[in-house]
């Protein structure tokens, strides 16, 4: 090199270095305020609230993902999957993918991740999604592996969306606080200022706009909202309705949760007239837009319309207090102890304004002549009531519940809630049991039909609960960024979907 070009080079470098700070100021760095600091950010906990939004599809990717609108299974790290019979599926992996530590994505790595997820050395909570199933993985070649499910699983493609592929060097005995994955963002640090991620420039997919993302933890909703207002944060993840007072920045979206009030079938709730009356006497419309956001949708069943098995023919219970009172009277004349106090159990900190909601509902039920008393419990006590084995003495009570099914299929709800062997089920109905067992082994239209029929019987003949609403979350998005939350945003918050506004 001649000295002249050397000087030119040095000059160029100096210019670049001088302008670098200015350029840095324009890098796309965003801050997201979230409510709860997670206990860990391990890639085998991608289904856990608080961990999923940081990890899932940002740092650690799963083999498949679901479409937010119709729950269709889409490829992610796996490009092809086929059922080869006997519960075995052959899965083909994507080419040209590396982990953040430089190791390549191959079948061995996936096998290791699957084994880790199921091992008892670490408490991987993603395992609960494949609870009573044993998965064994075997490498066939560098990019192909076989996954065997025992018992055989019709929904294997959905199962693939629960398997977070963590780097092969991830500790098999400790949950990670510095995860290594294949995602568009890699972990930088976790300190008192929050969790820092930076863009993975070796990512196999489309390069996202956001370069640096920091998650900060603020328990108080009003504060998260204020941070976006002052510009200290760009997105306030989940704020309560009363703090969502800025129509320009606040976005409401169905979050996949459905609320209901479960009946414990003790007198007088064991009489179907009372259960009908409770549904008829609840003015669902009154709470929409007042206690709850006006985007909530009154529910007919415990799953959302996008879930396979949803019965679209079911109608929302009308508000008919006269009919309700009539039913109560009938039951009373027939000797049902309608005056007996019924406990309405609420769980603290379930969702915003739940206290007010419960009180409003209780008053509506007082008006139709039933003696309902509210009892608030904190999570540990509430959990004892809702899971089998149930406590021996349970008096007449109704328990507030919220359930989310973002996995595309009714199987993830129906068995646990309605099958006589289900862990949160109050029912013992052979017809429903039969339909559920049948549907779970089927595929295609028959599966859908059977689930729909089960739902119909449950909603009209059994009436095990008072369905409430498909719930809505609110997110505040500041002017620096663009982001539209979708139905999966509460369980999968993809930073790559965030773009910077053009100046």
């Amino acid at each position, binding site marked *: 090199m001649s000295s002249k070009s050397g000087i030119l080079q040095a000059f160029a470098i100096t210019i670049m270095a001088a302008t670098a700070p200015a350029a840095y100021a324009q890098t796309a760095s965003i801050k997201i305020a979230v409510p709860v600091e997670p*206990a860990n950010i391990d890639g085998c906990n991608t289904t*856990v609230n608080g961990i999923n939004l940081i990890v899932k599809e940002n740092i650690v990717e799963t083999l498949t993902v679901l479409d937010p609108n119709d729950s269709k299974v889409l490829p992610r790290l796996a490009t092809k999957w086929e059922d080869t019979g006997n519960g075995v599926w052959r899965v083909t992996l994507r080419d040209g993918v590396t982990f953040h530590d430089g190791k390549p994505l191959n079948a061995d790595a996936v096998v290791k991740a699957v084994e880790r997820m199921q091992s008892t050395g670490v408490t991987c909570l993603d395992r*609960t999604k494949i609870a009573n199933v044993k998965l064994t993985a075997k490498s066939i070649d560098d990019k192909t592996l076989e996954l065997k499910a025992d018992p055989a699983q019709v929904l294997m493609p959905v199962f693939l969306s629960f398997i977070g592929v963590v780097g092969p060097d991830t500790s098999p005995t400790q949950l990670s606080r510095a995860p290594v994955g294949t995602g568009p963002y890699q972990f930088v640090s976790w300190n008192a*200022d929050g969790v820092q991620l930076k863009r993975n420039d070796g990512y196999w997919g489309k390069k996202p706009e956001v370069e640096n993302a920091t998650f900060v933890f603020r328990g*108080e909703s*009003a504060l998260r909202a204020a941070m976006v207002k*002052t510009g*200290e944060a760009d997105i306030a993840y989940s704020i309560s309705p009363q703090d969502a007072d800025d129509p320009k920045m606040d976005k409401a979206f169905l979050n996949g949760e459905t609320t209901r009030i479960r009946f414990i079938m003790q007198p007088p709730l064991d009489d179907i007239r009372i259960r009908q009356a409770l549904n008829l006497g609840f003015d669902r419309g009154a709470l929409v837009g007042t206690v709850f956001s006006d985007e909530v949708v009154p529910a007919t069943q415990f799953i959302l319309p996008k879930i396979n098995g949803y019965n679209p023919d079911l109608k929302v219970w009308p508000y008919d207090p006269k009919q309700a009172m009539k039913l109560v009277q009938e039951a009373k004349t027939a000797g049902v102890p309608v005056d007996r106090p019924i406990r309405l159990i609420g769980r603290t900190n379930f969702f915003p304004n739940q206290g007010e909601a419960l009180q409003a509902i209780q008053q509506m039920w007082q008006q139709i002549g039933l003696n309902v008393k509210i009892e608030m419990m904190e999570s*540990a006590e509430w959990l004892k009531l809702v899971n089998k084995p149930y406590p021996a003495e349970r008096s007449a009570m109704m328990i507030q519940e919220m359930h989310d099914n973002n996995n595309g299929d009714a199987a993830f709800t129906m068995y646990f809630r309605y099958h006589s062997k289900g862990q949160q089920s109050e029912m013992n109905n052979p017809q429903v049991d039969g339909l559920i067992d049948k549907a779970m082994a089927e595929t295609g239209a028959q599966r859908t039909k059977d689930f729909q029929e089960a739902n119909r019987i449950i909603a009209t003949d059994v009436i095990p609960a008072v369905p409430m609403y498909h719930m809505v979350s609110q997110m505040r998005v500041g002017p620096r960024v663009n982001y539209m939350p979708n139905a999966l945003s509460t369980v999968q918050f993809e930073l790559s979907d965030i773009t910077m506004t053009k100046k």
Partner: protein
Amino acid sequence: MGSYLSKRAVWSGISLFLLVVMVFFMARLTGSPADLYLPIDAPNSMREEFARLHGFDQPVLVQFFTFLRGLVMLDFGESLRQNRPALALVLEAMPTTLLLAFYSIAIALIVAVVTGALAAWRPNSIFDRIATLLSLIGASLPNFWIAIVGVLVFAVGLEWLPTSGTGSVAQWILPVAVLAIRPCGLIVQIARSSMISVLSAAYVKTARAKGAKSRRIIFVHALRNAMLPVITVAGDQAAGIINGAVIVETIFGFPGIGKLMIDSITYRDFAVIQAGVMVTAIAIFMLNVVIDIAYAILDPRIRMN
């Protein structure tokens, strides 16, 4: 002094131990916390596995002896939530809370003592009435409300201060101010009434007879004698903050001991609860020693007994 401290240490050590034992058993009485850590649809096999992993399937007494063994080596076990040593979690959180407590009480004390002393000098004057009114308001307002209003006014409205976080000095201003308001209000009241009673003491008359100016009378003669009840109240308030300025820590995102304890209790994270109780109790013990020393410095009659 040495024997006094060692006697205190022995007695406090015994109380500490009994406290930790009590918390141990009380917490275990709530049963296995597996339900809190596993998703609701986790099968029973997972719950049993969780219980086994963490020793909750053993009889309580066996768990207790395991705990005692670990205690000797200051090993409180691992946090259920984070799989890290519980003591480490607590020791990470403690300095934040201690600093918050220190700054708030220090500021509250200085402001309140001066205000109370000046108010006592001219009781029922305009200054006194305003000071009393403000102190009563300060002592009655709930922390939570002050914090939120503070954020809305100073951070969102005026944009003078940041909303939250721990990094810079500016971020500490609001939380310390919020924490200082209630103690300040209470201490103004105590300082004022203590000063009023001291200012009517006979030795103040002597000082006046000696020709002392009012500043000397207030700050040299009266103040030291009035400080004893003030120190008691300040110490009590400091203990309260150490125990957990939960609300302030939650709102402003300060990873302190209050927030850690509330979360641990909600999640039945036994190891952290125990470690937290122990460390907090030790902090309070030290605080009491400091208060005792302050008493002795202030009043020679106490020193000599």
